[in-house]
């Protein structure tokens, strides 16, 4: 029964990469313990310990993922000469350098794309102004100016991507907070339950143990709630500081 409960709980809180494998390993461990004729109590404790470390593994994987994303983001924003930035810049410059009719078509598409994806936000307005200034004064710009305009557009594009990334990190943190809250609660309840059971089995001061168990549940449950609220609060703050989240990956320079 404990195993089925853990299967359901871990199925919700473990990261996708290890979920199936880890829960399967837990089942296998329980069969191995049965084969080795371990007592039920000892088996339960070993399984709970294993489940706890699986959650630790899950948290570590999520943290590593988050750190990787952050460092990628940092590298991308720090290097104005990154390959993707240069490519996008070159593509845009080429479009701007095309003959008038083709240029209007190409920039019109970018404008539409940007408008559809970003709506009426800051990025969209800036990008649209940029595009329309090129469309309505097609031959006004020298190659050097085109390059500068392209750089500005690309800068806006990457700014947008950075914000989308920050949002996904914040969402990940909220998910983590929810998961850790559920796990704290589950482990606390199961742990206290096992403690009370041990006390009942031994027939010693049952009421006192039950009282301790209830106290422990309340204290740790309260702690978990505070932690969870703190995480959620911080994440909400971060989400507030992000103005918009267009799906910038959809912005493509089409000819």
């Amino acid at each position, binding site marked *: 029964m404990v195993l089925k409960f853990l299967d359901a709980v871990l199925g919700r809180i473990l990261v996708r990469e290890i979920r199936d*494998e880890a*829960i399967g390993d837990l*089942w*296998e461990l329980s069969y191995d313990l049965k084969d080795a004729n371990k007592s039920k109590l000892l088996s339960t404790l070993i399984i709970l310990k294993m489940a706890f470390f699986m959650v*630790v593994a899950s948290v570590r*994987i999520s943290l*590593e993922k988050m*750190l990787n994303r952050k460092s990628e983001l940092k590298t991308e924003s720090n290097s104005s000469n990154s390959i993707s930035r240069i490519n996008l810049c070159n593509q845009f410059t080429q479009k701007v350098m095309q003959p008038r009719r083709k240029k209007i078509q190409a920039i019109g598409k970018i404008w539409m794309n940007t408008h559809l994806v970003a709506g009426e936000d800051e990025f969209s307005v800036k990008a649209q102004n940029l595009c329309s200034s090129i469309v309505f004064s097609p031959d006004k710009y020298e190659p050097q100016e085109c390059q500068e305009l392209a750089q500005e557009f690309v800068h806006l594009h990457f700014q947008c991507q950075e914000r989308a990334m920050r949002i996904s990190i914040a969402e990940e943190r909220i998910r983590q907070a929810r998961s850790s809250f559920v796990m704290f609660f589950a482990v606390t309840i199961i742990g206290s339950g096992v403690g009370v059971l041990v006390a009942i089995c031994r027939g010693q001061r049952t009421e006192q143990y039950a009282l301790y168990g209830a106290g422990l549940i309340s204290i740790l449950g309260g702690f978990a709630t505070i932690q969870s609220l703190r995480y959620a609060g911080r994440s909400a703050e971060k989400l507030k500081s992000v103005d918009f989240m267009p799906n910038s990956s959809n912005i493509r320079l089409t000819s």
Partner: protein
Amino acid sequence: MNPKKSPLDITSIEEIVLMALRRQSYYGYELMNELLAISGSEIDLGPGTIYPLLIRLEKAGLIKCYKVNDSSGRRGGHSKKNYQLTDRGEEMLYRKQNLLSRVKAWSDDKSGGLQPSF
């Protein structure tokens, strides 16, 4: 993330896991038990260590995994991931061990004649 470009980027525990996977492919729980058994309980890698480590090595391209369905019925219907060493993993392991053996030979040689690059 540590991209594991140099042999020195591989930690001791990662090296042990790579050596185990060079021998044969294992899944997480099996690998934990096997290492515990062969080391006389000295290499006690819990799930908190082994799963992130396997994911890290897989992302670095040193190992690869394939899913196997639960045929024994002992896994509650959950599949397992069998990990095996890739060519890159094998090469990296070889380079690391070669490097260590060269340094060891140099360190053991008290005469001073042997250079690390022999």
